[in-house]
Every structure is written in structure tokens, then in C-alpha cells.
């Protein structure tokens, strides 16, 4: 197990390095020139100073040299500055990470029990009307464009009814807990609806499978109540592989968060990345994307490990 963990970790490190190079190259292909954007046509600058600045930022050097420099200083803990906000990128990203974490955790806290409940309900009588309705909902969930759902909810609940705030963040940093939660209602609703569909389909499928399995039949034969069978046996069995499903869903949940954060004006990781790319803030975009990638990678790694640990039937090669 330890050896497996270490080897998976080393692999992840390698993947992260490759990803950083890939992203570095991609971001280098975005329009504009970081030095030029910073100078913004300063008339006092002589061409010599321009050249000096270019040399300082290494813009005149080939891509791999620049990547080397970037990587070395990144490994020394210096992730550089945001060229738009003129602050260290981590200062900019810090609050955003917290914001996104809140959003995602809340979404998962609601999605998982909801998915289990709906999945279990649907699996009780496959093909029945409950199942049909839930399946239809699950289909709607994967077919609805999140940005549109957000817009419609804003039109209805904020503009027309005036019940809920149209923004995801309260005005002031000292806002009360309840105020913060109120602002989260619409974004979390959109994200939950986006996230829960695939989970429900998954829970339903694995519930149907376990409900048909021998040990559930035995349990039923023993005269255990249907609830006990569903709750104690079937659901628990469906839970284990759910870890993997959740981890794999993380990337898409993060993508969904980007859209939701942008529309509800929440300064999370997704919106920071979106803004950074719109503003051609090379370094901020790079570090933001890399962080998101690392989190996704780690979550799938953790899921694999948890899966291996939870399910003794999996033998580690």
C-alpha cells in the first residue's frame, strides 16, 4: 500500500511537471506581450529601457529558458506577481481558493445526500414513474447549460421576485454567516443541479445492481425489512465506488464553478482564472490553472487510494 501510494504520488508529480510545461506554452500563446501591457505606451520610456525590461522579464529568451526560470523560482516558493494587480499571485489567489472551497463543499454537502436519496428512490422500481421522473431530472441536469440556468434563476428570483440576491458574495467582508449563506443559495442551487445528475444516474445503476445481487436476496430472504436492506446493505455497497465518481466529477464541478462564479460575480478560482485570461495576466492565469489541475489530480489520487483502502477486493498491482 505504501509503495503504491508513493509510486502514485511520484507519478502525480511527474504529471504536474508536464502539465506546468504544457500550460506555460499555451499561455505563452495568448495575445499580447506582458512587458508591453505593463508599459502601456509610456512616452518617457526609451527603446533601451524597453529592451532592458524585456531582458529582465526574459521575454526575449526562448520558451524553454523562460520555463526553466519560472520553474526554478516556483520551486523556491516564488510564484511571481500578477501583472494586472501587481501583487504576488498567491495573495490574489488566497481568498479565491477559500471562496471556491466554500462553494464546492456546500455543493457536495447537498449533492451527495440528494443523489443517494434520489438514486435509491429511482432504483426501488426501475421503470416506475418515480424512476422515470428522476431519470428525466438527471438528463435535464446534464443537458442544461449552467450559465443559462443561472440567468433564468436570476431573472426569476432576483429581478422579478426580489427574494434572493443576484450576486454570490455579500457586500462586506464582515458579513454575517446567514448573509453569506443567503448569497450562496442561487449559485449553490445551480451548481448542485449541474452536479447531481451524473451522481444520481450512478447511484441508481449501482443500487439496481446490488439490489439484484445474491447477498441482498439473502438479506431479504432472512426477512429483513426493505428499509434495512436498502439502507444497510445496498446503499453502503453503492457508496464505495462513489468515491471515485466524486473525484472524477471534480474537474467538471470546477468547470461549472467557473461559470457560476463568473455570472454571480464571486471571486473564486474559476473567476480569477477567467479574468486573468481576459486581462492577459499570464502568471496569474498560469498559477491558477496549475493549482486547479493539481487539486483535480490530487482528488483523483486520493479517491484511488481511498477506493483501494475501502475495498479489500481490489488488489494492488
Amino acid at each position, binding site marked *: 500500500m505504501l509503495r503504491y501510494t508513493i509510486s502514485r504520488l511520484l507519478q502525480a508529480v511527474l504529471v504536474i511537471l508536464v502539465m506546468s510545461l504544457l500550460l506555460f506554452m499555451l499561455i505563452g500563446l495568448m495575445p499580447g506581450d506582458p512587458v508591453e501591457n*505593463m508599459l502601456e505606451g509610456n512616452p518617457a520610456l526609451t527603446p533601451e529601457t524597453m529592451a532592458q525590461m524585456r531582458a529582465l522579464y526574459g521575454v526575449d529568451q526562448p520558451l524553454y529558458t523562460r520555463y526553466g526560470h519560472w520553474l526554478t523560482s516556483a520551486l523556491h516558493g516564488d510564484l511571481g506577481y500578477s501583472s494586472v494587480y501587481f501583487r504576488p499571485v498567491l495573495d490574489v489567489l488566497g*481568498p479565491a481558493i477559500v471562496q471556491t472551497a466554500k462553494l464546492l463543499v456546500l455543493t457536495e454537502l447537498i449533492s451527495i445526500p440528494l443523489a443517494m436519496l434520489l438514486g435509491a428512490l429511482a432504483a426501488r422500481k426501475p421503470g416506475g414513474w418515480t424512476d422515470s421522473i428522476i431519470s428525466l431530472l438527471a438528463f435535464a441536469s446534464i443537458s442544461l447549460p449552467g450559465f443559462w440556468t443561472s440567468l433564468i434563476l436570476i431573472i426569476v428570483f432576483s429581478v422579478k421576485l*426580489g427574494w*434572493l440576491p*443576484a450576486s454570490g458574495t455579500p457586500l462586506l467582508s464582515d458579513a454575517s454567516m446567514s448573509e453569506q449563506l443567503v448569497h450562496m443559495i442561487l449559485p449553490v442551487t445551480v451548481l448542485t443541479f449541474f452536479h447531481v445528475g451524473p451522481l444520481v444516474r450512478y447511484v441508481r445503476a449501482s443500487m439496481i445492481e446490488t439490489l439484484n445481487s445474491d447477498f441482498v436476496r439473502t438479506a431479504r430472504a432472512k426477512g429483513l425489512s426493505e428499509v434495512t436492506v436498502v439502507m444497510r446493505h445496498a446503499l453502503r455497497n453503492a457508496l464505495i465506488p462513489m468515491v471515485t465518481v466524486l473525484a472524477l466529477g471534480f474537474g467538471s464541478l470546477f468547470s461549472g464553478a467557473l461559470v457560476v462564479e463568473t455570472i454571480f460575480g464571486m471571486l473564486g478560482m474559476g473567476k480569477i482564472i477567467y479574468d486573468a485570461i481576459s486581462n492577459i495576466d499570464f502568471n496569474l492565469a498560469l498559477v491558477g490553472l496549475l493549482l486547479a489541475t493539481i487539486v483535480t489530480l490530487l482528488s483523483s489520487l486520493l479517491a484511488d487510494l481511498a477506493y483501494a483502502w475501502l475495498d479489500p477486493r481490489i488488489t494492488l498491482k
Partner: protein
Amino acid sequence: MTSVGLKFKTFAKVALAGAAIAVLASSTTMAQPSKDQLVVGQIQFLTNFHPLIQVNNTKRLTINYSLRPITAFDENVVNQCILCETLPTIENGLAKIVDLPDGKKGMQVTLTLRKGLAWGDGVPVTSKDIEFTWKMARDPKIGFSNYNSWDRATDLKIVDDRTVVLTLPQVLSSYNSWDQILPEHLEGPVYAANPTLDTYVKQSLYNTQPTNPGLWNGAFLLSDYQIGTRIVFQPNPHWPGTKPHLQRIIFSYRDNSSALLQNLLAGAVDAVPVSPGGISFSQMLDLRGQQPTKFKYYIDYGTNVERIAVNFDNPILQDKSVRQALLYAIDRQAISDELFGGLQPVANGILSDENAYYNKNMTIYKYDAEKAQELLASAGWKPGPDGICVNDKGERLSLELVSTAGNQTREQIAQVVQSQMKDVCVEIKNNFVPLQEFNGEMARKRRFKALMMSSIDFSPSVSPRIALGSDSIPKAENNGVGNNFSGYANPAMDEAISELEVALDPKTTKEKWAEVQKIFADDLPMLPLYFYPRAYVAVPDLVNFRQGTLDPLAIWAEEWDRK
């Protein structure tokens, strides 16, 4: 089975209860708009907090709450002292024309700081701060933003703690307009340790600790912020002028103008600027149409003109009659009437007809499609088989129109222009490019092939040279500085501008402005479309709100109150 159902019921109850609580909580929080604070909705967070580096419209709208310029134009377009005692003029002797050692005429301007003026940390604002700011402005390694007022002065003498004399190397009509100054006691050491722009701007306290009260000298202090989300201003206890009525002004940032509008309607935001940094003009009109009384709409004429730059390197556009035909072909009045409720006045030139210097005696290009076609025909362009004009060489009259992607209004106008031009046999290919590319490649490097839509501000303190002077054509030698994107060069225009710049009495100024406008109307170095009015939307209980045409209204924010 029943138990699962039961659980579902419980769950539903809990969810409903939660929703109910949430709705209640939200309605209570929203039902109590605090009367001593104002929430201003904005888009585009500040790039950095330094008041003199990378200045743009949104920064001007924001920073002025807490850092005041020495002088500013009020709502009647009269220059006023903000931080100074008396506005220097030739009449009161605080400004005089002098002979410089090199034989040219120059000026000396005496500025005296207002009594009792102090930085937010209690340290008095002194001549040293002016000197420090001037020195930095003159440092090519730092490079404040374009057209910064301080680098015009070649010399500065400190007379006493509050008085300095600035020497201008030439006679300038804008001699008595002066910008913000920086605190020497805080920024001095940072500048000394970081003598170049790239490190200075990162280490400047404006960026490392913007809530440091010592950085600000206005009626308000920047007291709290979160990048991309909000900036909070609170009264400056050391402000010597009127004590602010509002206890808090909060800038709440939204991603786009429609979110802003929704927030305004939902009551989360009390005020929004229109156009730069806020909702679009047409959104304001929509809002006014639907909610005429819920908000107060402040609309004033503006000096910012939307125009289409015509690239003089393009042989087709070098022909004056083609340029004239293009302008005749655009029904600007219809655009203004239909899209902007007639409130964005058509621009006949670079000055609004509300401006005192407006010249009535010049060519006016009223929409006339027939005339446009005649002009094109006289220039050798005849309609081809597909309705698009061709010339003798078989070239099609097809022009690319570059504008900014994401600017809804501009995209709309571009599509209308395309449609209208088609009627007079001109094909317009719209190209919406991202803002960064627009500013860099298209504007500063002049890579646009034919037409480019952008706006330019001809305020009284700014010389028309920036867009019409032959020395303002952006090119590599001048680091792409200047707004003469058309590449227009006319000696007569250059001379008129030079004379305008040194004109000090209103009569000469008016004459010279008239000349500049006349040459403009004849040559059409750009196609003027309409003026952006200054507009602002706020809750009706906001009083003493001074909407100015030129300088940011924030300069008078201490007078604002909510009744």
C-alpha cells in the same frame, strides 16, 4: 419502504424550512438599506491602486474619493482648487509668462497647498510631497501614465512648506490643471529602494498596503478591499474641508453590466456609473423606461467622442471623397434616436455643440445616402454585380471595421454601420477583437487595415494634438504613443493646434478651436459618430450629488447625503 418515503418527507420539510429561513433572512437583510452608506456598483476592478501609474477611467472614478487632485473642473466646467488655496491665473499673478534661458517663452506657476491639509495618518501634506511627485514623474525609469500633469514642469522650487513654483518650458493653456500628489514620507523610501517601474509598482505601498491611511489625503480613506470584489471608503478624520455625511462608500464589483443592473434592481446596489465602469447607456435608457421614479438619472453632455479612425495608409481611404461618402452613409441621428433615446448627441466634429468653443460654421454631414453614392461615383466607385462598388481596377469597396469584442454598444453600432454602408455599396467586414489586442496590435501598432471604432476625450485640459497632430501618430519610435490612429498628417492642422495650445485668452482660444474644427470637418481624419454623455444612476434619496462633465464626481463626494 415507508421509512424511505418518510425520510424524503423529512428532507423536503427541512429543505423547505431552510429555503423559508433563507428567503426571510435575505428579505430582512435587503429591507434595511443603511442610510449612512452608499453602495456603488462597478465593473472592472482596479488594475493596481497606484494613482498615477496605469490610470484609466475606472481608476479615475474610484481613486478620487481618497486622493484628490490639486485642481479639478466642477460641474459647470470651471477649474477649481481642490487641494490648493487659490487657483493660479495670469490675472491673479500666480501664473506668469517668462523668458526662459534658451530664449523661448515659458511659464511660472505658483501653487499653495490648502491650510490644514493632512494625510490620513495625520502627517501634513507639504511642498515636499509635490516635489517628490514631480521628481518621480520626471523619472523615465518610473513612467507615470500618459499626459500626467507633473512631467510638464522642467523645474520646481520650494518656497515654503505649502508653496512651490513650477516652471513650464512653454506657454500652455492648461497651466493651472494639476493632478494628485503622493506622500513623500511613505513612498519616498519605497522609491529610493526600487528605482524602476517594475519593482516600484510591486513594492509601492499603494499596492502592498492600500489601506494604510497615510497614502490618502481626500475626504475619504480607502479602508478595506478585496481584489475583484469590493473597495470600501470611510471618512478621513484629518480632512480639513466639509466633513463627509456618508459614513461608508462601498464599491461593489460585478462581472458585467447586466449583473450590475440586476443588482441595482434587486436593491443590492445604490448607484452605478453609466458607460465606463458601469452599465451601458442603452441599459440606462431601458431602466429609465421601466423604472422612471425608482432611481434618479443624471445626464450631462460629455466630451468623449465615439469615432471611427480611418487608416490613411489605405489607398482607398486616402481619397477625401470616400471618407466623406462614408460619413454621409451613416445615419447617426437614427442611431442616436433609436438606440440612445436621442441622448447621445451626434458629433459633428470633435467638440460638442454644448461646448463654448463649438464652431457652427463648418461642413455638417447629415445622413444622405444619395450624396454618398454620388461622391463614391465621382471617386470612381460604381456598384458591381453583387451590389458592392468596384473601381476601374476591379477592386471591391470592402473595408474592415475593427472594434472591441465584448463592448455591447460598440458591437451594435458596428452592425448597424455595416448594414447602412451596404445600402450605399460599401461592404463592411466587422472584426471584433479582444480589448488587449485592440489596444496593442490594432491601436498602438496601427495594424488595422481600414476602419477602427474607438472613443477619445477632447476635454478642455487636453490638446487636440493627441489625436490630430502629426507627431501623435503611434509608431515604434515613440513607443506607440498618441491617439492619431488614422495616421493623419496636415501641416495646417499642426499649426492650428500649436497656436491653440499657447492661446491664453478666450478669444484667441475660440478662434483657434474654430480653425481646428474647420480643418477637421474638411479633411475628416476620422468619422465622428456621437458624444457619450456623462451619466449616473443613483437612488433618489441621494442628495447634493454633483454630476460633472469633465472630472470625476467623486471629488465632491463629502457633500453627498441620503435623506
